[in-house]
């Protein structure tokens, strides 16, 4: 087994990994290897043929393939070595802090030593079993991403009468995607009392196509012997339990599951990185460095983003940090302040702050509220927000002057009435 060597290994060639690779090269790191599981770069972007990508990052409204193509074009002008079709099995930390990566690709058992790693492996979709959807287990049940791959990578139509479970953006986009191919999208079902996706998608994907949205409804059962024949729905109470007597059935041949995404952080966890239960991704400091020095995380493995622009931004951020790490032989070891999830805050990234630099925070709320203040208490810094929703990430940049005001060991983030 030959050992490959590099200064920076980037695992994952989606938007975060690509942006990281380009940025790292431009900052002057000249020995970079980018590994990607798929045969084509871009992560999930090539199958996202709708628009809505790049409004912040490229200041243009692009489709997924266009967004990916731009990054791939930029990558071609660098000397980054790309290894597609590479499965990473294992990441371990050797003496002297060297990162060793084991993996496989066509004809090669890969062993690679790197001084720094940016981990950008993205997220995965939750299955019907994780979502606890009962009933039969027939064919015709797909995750949204699976259906999207079939339609927009392979040109296959999964079915003709569709019920979509989950009204997050992925579910909404797929509702429209099926409608555009002439399928009868019979319903989008959401267990929460409010939609899970962006307002623009509710309008453009459901209302414009006359697709019915059932809020506060859950799937009690999938029925079907060989292929899906029907789903049974019921209204749910505040605890998400079905209410007796409200059950009804919708005939369909296809069920699309858009029931949440989970960071694929298992390899990081096995390597020893601490995982945040709120995000499902690694705990990072304001260099996006995990608890393993020199291992950084970016994109949906760090936190499930709702805009690709954020994933790319995190990729660049991680690249800057990796550059600093390599140049200075490590990052400052300071007493990081812990970020505390306060009132109506479900998650926040980064979870640790040095207060030495301007820092961007990404977060999500637990429940929708109007006319609120987002407060970074110990930094005495607040932002007025007309509305917050669980589906819409908030992103704020706090200057270092404000962060340096923090005296204790924590920074509490609260959402309070304005």
């Amino acid at each position: 087994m030959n050992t490959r060597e590099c200064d920076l290994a980037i695992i994952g060639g989606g938007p975060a990994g690509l942006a990281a690779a380009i940025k790292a090269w431009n900052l002057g790191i000249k020995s970079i290897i980018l590994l990607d599981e798929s045969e084509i770069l871009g992560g999930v972007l090539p199958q996202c043929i709708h628009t809505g990508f790049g409004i912040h990052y490229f200041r243009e409204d692009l489709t997924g393939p266009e967004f990916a193509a731009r990054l791939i074009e930029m990558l071609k002008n660098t000397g980054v070595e790309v290894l597609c079709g590479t499965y990473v099995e294992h990441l371990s930390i050797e003496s002297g802090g060297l990162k060793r990566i084991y993996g496989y690709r066509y004809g090669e058992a890969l062993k690679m030593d790197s001084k720094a790693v940016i981990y950008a492996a993205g997220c995965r979709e939750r299955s019907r079993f994780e979502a606890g959807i009962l009933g039969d287990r027939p064919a015709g049940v797909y995750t949204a991403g699976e259906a999207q791959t079939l339609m927009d990578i392979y040109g296959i139509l999964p079915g003709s009468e569709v019920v979509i479970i989950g009204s997050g953006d992925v579910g909404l986009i797929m509702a429209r995607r099926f409608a555009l191919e002439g399928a009868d999208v019979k319903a989008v079902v959401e267990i929460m009392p409010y939609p899970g996706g962006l307002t623009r998608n509710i309008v453009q994907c459901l209302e414009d196509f006359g697709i019915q949205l059932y809020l506060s409804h859950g799937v009690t059962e999938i029925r079907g012997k060989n292929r899906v024949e029907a789903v049974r729905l019921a209204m749910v109470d505040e605890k998400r339990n079905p209410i007796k007597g409200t059950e009804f059935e919708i005939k369909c041949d296809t069920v699309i599951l858009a029931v949440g995404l989970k960071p694929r952080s298992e390899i990081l966890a096995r390597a020893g990185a601490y995982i945040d239960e709120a995000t499902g991704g690694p705990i990072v400091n304001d260099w996006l460095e995990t608890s393993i020095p020199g291992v950084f995380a970016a994109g949906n493995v760090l936190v499930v983003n709702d805009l690709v622009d954020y994933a790319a931004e995190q990729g660049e951020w991680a690249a800057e940090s990796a550059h600093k790490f390599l140049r200075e032989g490590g990052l400052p070891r300071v007493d990081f302040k812990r970020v505390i999830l306060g009132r109506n805050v479900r998650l926040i990234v980064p979870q640790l702050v040095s207060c030495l630099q301007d820092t961007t925070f990404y977060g999500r709320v637990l429940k929708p509220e109007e006319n609120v203040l987002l407060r970074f208490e110990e930094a005495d810094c607040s932002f007025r927000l007309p509305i917050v929703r669980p589906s819409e990430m908030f992103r704020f940049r706090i200057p270092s002057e404000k962060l340096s005001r923090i005296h204790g060991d924590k920074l509490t983030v609260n959402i309070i009435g304005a």
Partner: protein
Amino acid sequence: MRRPIHVAVIGAGIVGASIARVLSMFEDFEVDLLEREVDIGWGVSKANTGIIHAGYDDEPELYPLRAKLCVEGNKLWHKWTEELDIPIRWCGSLVLAFNNEEMKILKELYNRGVRNKVKELKIIGAEEIKTLEPNVSREAEAALWAPTAGQISPWDAVIALVENCVMNGVRLRLSTEVRGIKIEGGCVRGLETNRGFIEADFIINSSGLYADKIAEMAGLGGYRIKPRRGEYLIFDREAEPKVSRILFPTPTPISKGVVVTTTVDGNLMIGPSAQDLAEDQREERANTREGLDYVWESASKLVEKLPPKSRVIRFFAGLRPEPTGGDFIIRKYDEVFGLIDAAGMRSPGLTSAPAIAHMVLNILKSTLDADFKPKKCWNPYRRRIRRFSELTPEERSKLVKEEPRYGRIICIDKMVTEMEIIEAIRRGATTIDGVKFRTRACMGICQGSSCTHKIALIISRELKIPLWKVSIRGPGTEIGIGDVKSLFRRRKT
């Protein structure tokens, strides 16, 4: 040499495959193994707990066949798993007692086990339980320790048996459904099927949930098969704590109860529930809230701790064929020469299967009053598909150099390579589930959502079928309905 005896075995499940294997040892038989599904082992055999029981459960007075064949089957599985390279863990089982009432049942089980000639049985106290299984509930006061129990994966066994059968000359006929039995002059002549007539001198009825219906086709039977549903939950392989032994509660008259065990793949599994269904519900395999809640609560009592519910990656349900009377039905009939039942294979059917096969052979022997001639070239061995994930790094490195397609990992969770999938197809997989049960692809956390299409691409390429026509488990379960514009075209015409 005299004309070979045609035997048609109905059902390529664990029992049918075991019978076919035993018959394939002799020159006297020509064996057809019939299966209505597109692949083997997809009925009762696919969804059960996969335990090779020690044999103390079955009362010899009430259920003589179960009592006898379970212990014999257990012994035979030692040999068969070795010959056929079937993964098995001889981990032993513990029946846990939590109060005096249950202590009494333990003693009954112990005595019954001794009568059934189960070896090495022992009643042990709390201390010893802890050393055998640290995760047992602290409330457990005593246990029946049966070190001869084992854990396998039932579909591994069916696949291994059928591959070995085919190697030894058995004709496997898939997608073949029996429609009628032809009888002339009180003798079996053959089977009417959806694929035409199949001649047979003997018909072995090992058709699982439908055995009574098949017997009725010959105007025989007089027993009914009722489906009993059992639901299960499986945890992520990395979810802790696991158990290293098979844990049972004390049994009730109808069931051995909800078991906590670790599968041969290293996933903690709990189940089954036991719900009697109506006779016409032989395809009812839905998961229910009540069933899964019952499994969870029952399993929780046996162990100190279960992993959190969020670590459940799959639930499923299987049906057990409960026969009238409760005992296995293994018999010939005076009315019709040539029909032999091997029916009602509820638990311990899997354990007993090899012994059932030998019993059927003996029925044939006594019926024909003949000694059969062993094949000289009979091959007892079969190797399973080499699993990349089970090799050492050095072995993997070498293998990838020899065959580059071992480097392409298709199922990420289970680290299943393209080459293993190709091998599964070469050995008879034609569907996603066929590949899944032969390689374990799709059995990880994502349950196939990220690799189904990659497997479909390989099947499509290898078997030269359009991608959208690749199915999950046969006709009616295709992954698509056509190309992405097919609905528009359909509407125009």
